[in-house]
């Protein structure tokens, strides 16, 4: 069954028309993809998330939208003054995209120098021997985006990469983003995935690689709000050089299958990682975050905070691992995962892991699973607030701190009402947590 699906993907790869200079990378990817043992329920990394939705489908390659996108689709784009690249069903849509600076280019438009940068960096940060779906991404590599800032370069505006799926059929879309920041460079990036069709049954496999040079700083946001029928497998790989900073934020609803991996390596001393995440599955959705932070060298810091509100009969998985290598003395690492179950059927499997091989480090981790606080509910209803609205306010309150922590003001303003509406579907229930 499994091997069968791996073969299916290779057959799909053969149907693609490909940029010649990517052929070598694709071949490496395909060989890595085929050498992976297909995960079973006994495979630790996939213990709580079934790949059946991927296996039980005859996938086709996605193609560009045949018709113009409905206006409602465009209104779902984040209102942010940014360099914007919009992909519709995996194809770059020039009309919806903005003018781009020379440092930001789609793979298809890359000049010889940029092609060299891509070839040099691709799969250097992401390890496709470890990450199954990164190998798939490289196997199917065709479209992609490169952001390459040279020494001390700083973009005037954030980069906004949107992936819209608008088909209600089983198409597979491959997305790839490569960010290379040379020393001292600074960038802000927003990746946004969504469906225009509630019945979107597409699958997007999205890999982001970030090489953050010495003293460089990357603020990265990944917003996953596809239809609940859609599948998403994705990963964000980050390598931090000396005194580099990565500030990550991620938000996801759930769907039939949604699996997002973060793999971050501190490779230069003095580097700093802040990673915040929110997952909000409801109905029968599934969401699975796996994070792995490796401290390879001394004097680096990690602060990781994930919070989930799991409603109805949804299921969430959080597996956060911090690995302190033998040489990584003076590491400061903290990880916290808090979960709120708002129904009796909701489930979460949380597993924070610390693996420490150095002896002079300060590390802490914690995970909690709780329900809505009855005392707080009564306090609010005793102030005249309906129980339904109180539940929405308390659910939002559980993640509010992380929403408020989003520094990109336009994104924060955009997020608030959308998150609120995941907890309460009417304005009556959300109006007191959405302020102008």
């Amino acid at each position, binding site marked *: 069954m499994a091997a069968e699906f791996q073969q299916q993907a290779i057959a799909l790869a053969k149907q693609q028309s490909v940029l010649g200079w990517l052929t070598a990378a694709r071949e490496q990817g395909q060989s890595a993809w085929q050498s992976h043992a297909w995960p079973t329920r006994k495979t630790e990394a996939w213990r709580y998330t079934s790949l059946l939705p991927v296996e039980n489908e005859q996938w086709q390659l996605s193609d560009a939208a045949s018709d113009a996108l409905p206006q409602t689709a465009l209104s779902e784009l984040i209102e942010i003054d940014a360099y914007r690249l919009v992909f519709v069903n995996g194809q770059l849509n020039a009309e919806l995209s903005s003018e781009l600076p020379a440092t930001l280019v789609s793979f298809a438009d890359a000049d010889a120098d940029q092609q060299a940068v891509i070839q040099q960096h691709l799969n250097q940060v992401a390890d496709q021997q470890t990450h199954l779906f990164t190998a798939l991404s490289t196997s199917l590599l065709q479209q992609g985006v490169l952001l390459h800032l040279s020494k001390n370069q700083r973009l005037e505006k954030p980069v906004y990469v949107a992936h819209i799926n608008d088909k209600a059929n089983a198409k597979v879309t491959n997305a790839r983003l490569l960010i290379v920041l040379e020393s001292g460079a600074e960038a802000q990036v927003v990746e946004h995935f969504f469906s225009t069709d509630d019945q979107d049954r597409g699958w997007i496999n999205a890999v982001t690689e970030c090489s953050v040079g010495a003293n460089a700083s990357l603020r990265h946001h990944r917003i996953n709000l596809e239809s609940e029928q859609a599948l998403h497998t994705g990963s964000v790989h980050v390598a931090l050089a000396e005194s580099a900073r990565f500030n990550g934020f991620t938000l996801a609803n759930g769907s039939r299958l949604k699996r997002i991996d973060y793999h971050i390596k501190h490779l230069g001393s003095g580097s700093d990682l802040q990673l915040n995440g929110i997952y909000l599955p409801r109905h029968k959705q599934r969401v699975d975050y796996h994070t792995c932070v490796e401290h390879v060298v001394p004097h680096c810091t990690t602060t990781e905070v994930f919070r989930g509100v799991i409603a109805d009969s949804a299921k969430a998985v959080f597996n956060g691992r911090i690995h302190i290598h033998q040489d990584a003395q003076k590491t400061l690492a903290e990880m916290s995962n808090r979960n709120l179950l708002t129904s009796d059927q909701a489930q979460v499997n949380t597993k924070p892991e610390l693996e420490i091989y150095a002896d002079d480090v300060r590390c802490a981790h914690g995970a909690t699973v709780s329900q809505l606080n009855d005392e707080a509910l009564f306090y609010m209803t005793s*102030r005249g607030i309906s129980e339904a609205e109180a539940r929405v306010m308390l659910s939002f309150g559980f993640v509010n701190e992380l929403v408020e922590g989003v520094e990109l003001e336009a994104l924060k303003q955009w997020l608030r009402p959308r998150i609120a509406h995941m907890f309460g579907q009417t304005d009556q229930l959300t109006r007191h947590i959405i302020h102008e």
Partner: protein
Amino acid sequence: MLTIKDLCASVEDKEIIRQLSLEVKPGEIHAIMGPNGAGKSTLGNVLSGRPGYEATSGTIDFKGLDLLDMDPEIRAREGLFLAFQYPVEIPGVSNMELLKAAVDARRSHTGQPELSAIDFMKMAREASKAVDLDQSFLKRGVNEGFSGGEKKRNEIMQMMLMEPSLCILDETDSGLDIDALQVVARGVNAMRSPDRSFIVVTHYQRLLDFIVPDYVHVLANGRIVKSGDKSLALELEAKGYSWLEDEVA
């Protein structure tokens, strides 16, 4: 305003209030005093509708309505307010959000137009000033990291904004220093009016120096064992509660 007749109430099947009757007319301040375990806090909780506090018999009429038949939020919208003995901390929900939701709910229930965000902000600022809370408290999580005194002042601020017709203060004086006590009392006294009533539940007479009651009731073993005017509070202060318990027994 409020008529309690032969109320019996239980918590976890244990009877705490036994055959309690009380009449509070508009504009009156009633103090309920009594030793620990007498049922003082239970009375406030039954009145506000806290889950787990069950009225097993008797009736409570609130402004012509059957109070026991109403959910807590409806009681609040009708104008009943309980200032908590232990206000709850709610991180992530700001004081301002809670207050606006509360006041909107009360106003729309009583057919008053909703306040604009700006008008409400003005009102909230004034209220916070009146209880000596810095405006920054409006933006903080509800009671999050507040000191004991700040929590109690926050309760009074909520009460001012809700403009209730019946205010129940559940041991609002506990844990307050004399300055905070005066702030609380000033807030309450500023709210006194001919159509607003207060039930002040307290263990000590001290609060009643500042909030002067029309009636003082002594609660023991779940029933009112003695009622009088404010001089009863002074007598209790001097003699303690035991003589009353003996007298009843």
